[in-house]
């Protein structure tokens, strides 16, 4: 993707978000006097954002194609985000944070270490390391700070 296209897409997205903001707050009643209601300030900012995005978009559209935008390590970024989604989702739906966190941590350590070579020994080391970290977190947070995970 060229940086011009990426920027244009982002401008469109931002304009859409700003428009959504205006739509969300436009109907808010204003029961307590004051010339500016709940929606006044967000609306003002959203209008400014739309104006600025439009200017930016026009400038970008008229400008050069720009260098290719690529996301280095895209695979790892996406895998990490998916792992986080899985962790939060399972935790919310099923519970058992600590076993989940152990799998999450070991998995990430192995994923990132796989840049080099992932030997069975390394996997074992990673799981031991994660187990120790998670155990420390468990001991400290549940028994000293009384957080219920």
């Amino acid at each position: 993707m060229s940086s011009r296209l990426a920027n244009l897409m982002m401008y469109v997205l931002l304009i859409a978000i700003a428009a959504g903001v205006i739509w969300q707050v436009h109907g808010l009643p204003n029961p307590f006097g004051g010339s500016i209601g709940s929606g006044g300030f967000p609306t003002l900012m959203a209008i400014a954002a739309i104006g600025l995005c439009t200017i930016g978009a026009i400038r970008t559209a008229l400008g050069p194609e720009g260098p290719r935008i690529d996301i280095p390590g895209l695979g790892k970024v996406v895998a990490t985000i998916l792992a986080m989604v899985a962790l939060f989702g399972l935790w919310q739906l099923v519970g058992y944070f600590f076993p989940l966190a152990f799998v999450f941590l070991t998995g990430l350590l192995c994923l990132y270490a796989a840049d080099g070579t992932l030997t069975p020994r390394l996997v074992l080391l990673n799981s031991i390391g994660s187990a120790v970290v998670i155990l420390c977190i468990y001991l400290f947070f549940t028994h000293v700070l009384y957080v219920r995970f």
Partner: protein
Amino acid sequence: MDFLASIDLMTWLSAAGSIFVGLFVGMLFGALPGLGLTIAITLLLPLTYTMEPLNAILMLLAVYQAAEYGGSISAIALGIPGTVMAAPIVQDGRAMAQESSPGKALGFSLYASTLGGLFGGAVLILFAQPLARFALRLGDAEFFLLGLMGLVAVTAFAARDPIKVAISICFGMIAGTIGLDMFTGLPRLSFDIPQLYEGLNLISLVVGLFAFSEAFYMMGGDMRHRYEFDTSRMKITLTVREMLSGFKASTIGAVIGTVLGILPGVGSTVAGWLAYSTAKSFSKTPAKFGNGSGEGIAAPDSANNAVVGGALLPFLTLGIPGTAGIAIIAGAFIIHGITPGPQMIRDNPELINGIFIGFMVTTVGMFVMGKLLSQGFARALVTPNFILVPGVLILSIVGVYTTRSQVFDLWLALGIGIAAYLMRRLDYSVAGFVLAFVLSPIIEISFRRALLISGDDYTVFVTRPISAVLVAVMVVMLGFTVRKLLRKRGAPAAGGAANGT
């Protein structure tokens, strides 16, 4: 001060012990992303019930002071501010730590924090009464103008495309309005999600914007790469010359931090930003700002710690806690049946003197503790990323959850993290977004309230004497900025070197 004679060794030792514990916990929790002052206090508060009143208060003050500094340790070592106050330090701290010397970056931070802390303390001790009175004369009209001035600070943060910076500010402002509108009691932009009624959780925001997006960034590089520094560069120390080079910036930060700390409700979060931009415009080498300038580290760090002394001032003299941090520390007073205010000063002079002396000791103790603990954190820089990234992620996740036990806050942080990552890739300004976010409530609320009080009379912003002065200052500031821009156009190669004030 004849009470000095009457205090015996044990009293001193137990006070020193309390301060030590407070410093250690505060600094550690401040440095860990997600954890912070509130969690540290949760941990230590049960201890304070059985302690002497003075020791309890000093311990919590030490936590506050050390957490402010702790936030900048991780900002420098990891590029992830432990607290939102440390956000202005990230750019220069990270640059200096990676490119030349982590020890020096942490050194600038520590020396400046100590200077800021001492300055705030000195102002507290010497001018408490008159300053607290003066601060009361500032009202919403002035707070609004201060907020606007804070916004101008963003021009100091280097960014390539001014339009994108402006867009970042707009969205930061909008994000700052999420939640119940105090004026109408109505929820705005919160989509019926109760967790959003109080606005975006600040911890989720910091962790998402900085910790998560930074982790995603690290994945783009070589995960096995480790920085190597010889031991002399890891040492947290500064030469006399370096100390002097940061002195002006630290002093600017200390003054700004103390003043903003005194103003009740304006929020310590703004102090660091204002200090950064002011130090830049007074600097002989403004071009270095953003690329590892010692002054760029020193000014906000000094301001953050000066806020503590400043915020204590209206609290001890009038009973009004100036910042959220002080409101938390107020618990130690309640536990021991002490009500802060004019009466306490009359009835309990030993306690006040003890707090004053203890506060200075705390600041010096922070310096020593900082030297010890920062060393360990500096090591994070030489840890390869494939270990660092999972570590940062799991600690951030636990930290965000700990603040109020809501998985929602984690989803929020993840969403913000992904958005921030994309925006950073496209050169939007994270600094502008955060600054606008923290200023948004100040600007909006004080503007609307000033009008409400004056009965929709817009002249209120210029007719009050102090607000008139502020308007004049703003006009001058804008003038300077415009002049600088014009000059830059004229001689782009000269950089900012010609800018003297």
